[in-house]
């Protein structure tokens, strides 16, 4: 008999992310990842939100419970109008995948693609 285990994957739209504050995004991601889900963000996080996520992750690491996250995104892309660039708003987050460190592993990553492997726990 073959037993199949499932992994839940949550794909979060850019529109939803746009309406959230940085702290709400970080909390949402960590709450999902700590329950074993893989989260894909359509529009990613800003560089500042990425460090806040890493910082919050560090405070929540617990021996034998949660060893952290695997997060992969592409380098930020400069876009926007002249005024956006002038006021530093031109750095746009890009698609990002985040999962529990013990379940997701990056196989290959370059400028154009991210290949990850998700393992199913016991």
């Amino acid at each position, binding site marked *: 008999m073959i037993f199949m285990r499932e992994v839940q994957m949550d794909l979060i739209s850019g529109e939803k992310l746009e309406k959230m504050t940085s702290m709400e995004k970080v909390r949402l991601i960590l709450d999902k990842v700590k329950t074993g889900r893989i989260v894909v963000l359509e529009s990613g996080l*800003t*560089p*500042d939100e*990425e*460090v806040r996520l*890493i*910082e919050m*992750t*560090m*405070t929540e*690491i617990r*021996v034998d419970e949660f*060893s*952290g*996250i*695997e*997060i*992969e*995104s*592409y*380098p*930020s892309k400069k876009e926007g109008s002249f005024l956006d660039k002038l006021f*530093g708003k031109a*750095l746009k987050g890009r698609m990002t995948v985040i999962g529990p*460190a*013990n379940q997701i592993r990056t196989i290959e*990553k*370059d*400028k154009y693609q991210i290949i990850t492997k998700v393992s199913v726990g016991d």
Partner: protein
Amino acid sequence: MGFISGFKESLGGWIKRIFKKKRAKIGLYGPPNAGKTTLANRIVHDWDEDDSFGEVSPIPHETRRAMRKEGVVIDANGSSIELDIVDTPGMATKIDFKEFMAYGLSEMEAKKRAKEATEGVIEAIKWLDDLDGVLLVMDSTEDPYTQVNVTVIGNMEARKLPLLIVANKMDLPNASPARIKAAFPQHAMVPISALEGLNIDELYQAIATHFG
């Protein structure tokens, strides 16, 4: 008396501003085991004739507290720059104590190291708010597309602060500084070996140009 001492203080401050050297507070960032402390030790040894920054080890997260050295004067390109150098703990998104046990640490030592390493990562992040520039140290034998590298570069770009990529460990046979350059072509990169001192003068020239 208040007037005279006040006058002396303002005169002293004025003279200091006119004649002071260019000064910058620079953070050494990068993933664990990229060679940040080895490079910090090299810089201090070459320019300060003082003791070293800290211990180095093959076990990841040897540096778990940020260390600062003030007033390291580097002379290169005919100019002089005074640096406050901050050697930060390795940045990571995950820390598993079992990884340290693979290096021979006892379970208790490994758990203690993991706890301190998480605090170190937070400390490294906090330092980002208080720097004038970053030397991002990468291991040139490893894949440069790590999230730590992407995140540090993204933050420096967003803050509009100068960044210099140091492709370390160029002495190793499988080193590929070209791969790092291809990954982040928009930033200056200097290949070095902090351990062997290879190409280190080129790095000092780049530091003087970038942060001076």
